[in-house]
């Protein structure tokens, strides 16, 4: 008999077609009469398509520099997102005008950003969410993004076939292969809040894999705006919709977490990715940067996410600095909440610490909380979210074990079996931490098809 941990919360409404659970269950699965994003309504529909250019980071450092930064002309994708979003705003598709929500930077060392948003959360009956399983199968009966209205979808986002960025104003939708799409979030946290939904029609559950994370990184690179950041919440870390998606929006100030100092842990040689640990920040987390190629950075992060998912550890990810820096936060707030370990005072603020809150952008629904917002309160809340020092060390060890496995397997595969003797030089978690392997078998640790081949 297994115990399952649940919390109750009012889910954020991201689409105008998202209804209550009861209504959801009663919905007919096919033949709807409105413009949804499913096979019933899609054939014949057209949607703008942005084909992004592949960027190979290190090789194209100069090209990347040309693409980006707040100082040079807006990148096309940037204009596209802003233009489409403003269009939907003028069409009244959002539940409220987010620019009418007062915002301030809380005085203090970190510069937390607080927003008073009384309209974001509905005064509805809270729904139950299972928080003890990071991996849950997709449930077609629950709300998912194929149910959004086509007017809520802004454009398709695909890799360009010939290596140059392209834009097509009226492209058909490839239902067979399922496009990646960018849709609006009708309860925006700030201007330009969109959802990136990889392979929307494939109905993938909320879990990161190599391909989807790489897509997210490409979007960050292509938008070329350091104030346009992408985020991800796993199940159990305040994702409410179990349909694979990333979020993104604009905020033209640095996030507190971006300012936090870091301490380098190592450089993953095969990937060329530097991994650091956050210092002096209320939530413990890792920072990934560099990479010989964008794909290498992506793989380092997604290897990590896959490991955490496999070990049932909820986490959040922030893609910042135009895809140059990725922050990863394993967390346990939901678990604590389910076990009744969070103080009533904190629960009353109804702040669910997902990626944006952890990064330092707090949306507050009560005027009292906004007016009394202080750095001390913000840190207190975030401290509850963070893994303890010890637990974080354990998780770090797990993560590095998984990354080295994955990296070295690629390395070994590439070099062939003859070079197996050379593997004693290969990086391993033991070398790094000088610690014995954790309890638990190898196979339980790493999901997917990786077998651990690290030599002791």
């Amino acid at each position, binding site marked *: 008999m297994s115990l399952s941990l649940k919390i109750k919360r009012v889910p954020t409404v991201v689409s105008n077609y998202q209804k209550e659970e009861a209504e959801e269950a009663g919905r007919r699965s096919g033949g709807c009469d409105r413009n949804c994003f499913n096979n019933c309504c899609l054939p014949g529909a057209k949607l703008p398509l942005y084909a992004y250019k592949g960027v190979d980071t290190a090789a194209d450092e100069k090209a990347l520099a040309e693409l980006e930064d707040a100082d040079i*002309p807006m990148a096309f994708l940037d204009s596209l997102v*802003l233009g489409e979003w403003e269009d939907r705003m003028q069409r009244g598709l959002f539940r409220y005008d987010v*620019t009418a929500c007062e915002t301030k930077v809380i005085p203090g060392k970190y510069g937390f950003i607080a927003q008073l948003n009384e309209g974001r959360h509905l005064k509805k009956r809270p729904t139950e969410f299972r928080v003890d399983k990071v991996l849950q199968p997709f449930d077609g009966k629950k709300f998912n993004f194929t149910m959004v209205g086509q007017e809520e979808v802004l454009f398709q986002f695909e890799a360009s076939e010939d290596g140059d960025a392209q834009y097509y104003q009226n492209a058909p939708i490839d239902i067979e292969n399922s496009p990646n799409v960018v849709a609006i979030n009708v309860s925006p946290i700030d201007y330009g809040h969109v959802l990136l939904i990889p392979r929307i029609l494939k109905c993938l559950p909320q879990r990161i894999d190599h391909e989807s994370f790489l897509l997210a990184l490409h979007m960050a690179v292509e938008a070329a705006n350091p104030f346009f950041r992408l985020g991800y919440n796993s199940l159990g870390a305040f994702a409410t919709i179990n349909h694979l998606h990333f979020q993104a929006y604009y905020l033209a100030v*640095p996030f507190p977490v971006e300012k936090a100092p870091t301490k380098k842990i190592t450089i993953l040689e095969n990937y060329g990715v530097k991994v650091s640990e956050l210092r002096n920040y209320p939530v413990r987390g890792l920072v990934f940067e560099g990479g010989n190629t964008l794909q290498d950075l992506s793989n380092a992060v997604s290897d990590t996410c896959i490991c955490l998912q496999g070990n049932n550890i909820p986490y959040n990810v922030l893609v910042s600095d135009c895809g140059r820096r990725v922050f990863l936060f394993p967390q346990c707030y939901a678990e604590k909440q389910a076990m009744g370990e969070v103080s009533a005072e904190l629960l009353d603020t109804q702040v669910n610490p997902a990626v944006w809150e952890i990064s330092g952008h707090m949306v507050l629904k009560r005027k009292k909380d906004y007016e009394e917002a202080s750095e001390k309160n913000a840190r207190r809340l975030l401290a509850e979210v963070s893994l303890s020092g010890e637990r974080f060390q354990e998780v770090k060890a797990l993560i590095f074990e998984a990354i080295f496995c994955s990296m070295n397997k690629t390395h070994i595969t590439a070099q062939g079996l003859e070079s197996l003797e050379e593997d004693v030089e290969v990086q391993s978690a033991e070398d790094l931490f000088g610690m014995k392997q954790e309890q638990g078998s190898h196979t339980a640790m790493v999901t997917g098809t990786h077998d651990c081949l690290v030599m002791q």
Partner: protein
Amino acid sequence: MESQLALIEQSFNSRYSCHVREALDELPDSFTITDPSICGHPIVYASRGFLKMCGYSREEVIGQNGRIFQGPGTDRRSVMEIREAIREERTIQLNLLNYRKDGTPFWMLFHMNPIFSKEDGTAIHFLAVQVPLSGRGRRRGRRSHDSGTEDVIFGSCRKEVCFDSLLEVGRVLEHNNSVLDSEDSAGVVDIEETCEANELEKRRAASAIKNILSVLTHYSELTGRLVCGKRGCCNGTSPLGSSVAISLGRIKQSFVLTDMHLPDMPIVYASDAFLKLTGYSRHEVLGRNCRFLSGMDTDPSTLFHIKESIRAERPCTVRILNYRKDGSSFWNLLHISPVRSASGKNAYFVGVQMEEGGCRNQGGGGLSTEMRHRSTVGAVRVALRTLSMGSGSSKVE
């Protein structure tokens, strides 16, 4: 439209009398001066010392943004801190890794000071002084498990070591994945983390700033458009700081911002494209109401419609006959929308102009007129939303 180089020339010439460059050329220090009001925030002056230090020629540097000296080993946090200091128009000093023309990295103490106009208190230029580091200020350390008061520094700091150990940090690797970093006995990975400036180097930076500022101040007196190293000493509110100018400068569209709460709703920002479209110069439009664009044959009912929308604080799109400075007219597809500030209240109007039948290559590529109108409005909203929100001098250390 003046080319960027012409703008750069003007950046200096309108502010300082003509011998300023000679005077600056006589200073031995390495420094650059940038202009935030020109799109791309380019370098408008680079000292001989700077060119010598980085190995570029003057032509290669003037007009470029400081980012060209950054590279894979440059700490992204530092880049962000500099960006924020520019946004907030304040001084910053930090250790930074830059790259020469030949690709070799070097550490320097980067000290940046805004230069304020005495008239309106805006930062009109940024002065950056670079002091190459000898490394005598650095410490050798081991990784500590408890976060102490500062970053732990690994390894030694000779420039050759810098170069070698930095090869693998995100650079293109044609060679194999062999471990390049050497480990010392504590199992600490030996990679360049940072480099500290010593007291002497910091003093050099400070005195260089002082000397350069006094040259600039002197030569600005001669034009009557005084500058000073500190803000304050200004009357009247500055239109919009350089932070907004920089973020709005990215928008290639023709547009203006007007302040809703000032009498007669004056223009407080005009994009370069607007100036090009209408033929006016910036100081000819700032502070004026947009009505000067209308003329004899402008349809009064269109004007009325605009006025009504403004009064109701509502967006509107019209086709209006406008006039350039030279008297020629053009059909303007104009979109106006109220924009809120961080307080959440309407504070500005943005007006986006598009010349009917005009050049399609205005950086919008395949975007329709409506889309271009809207993306401009969106970008303005993002920029103005955090206008008054300085992230303070918060530095997490």
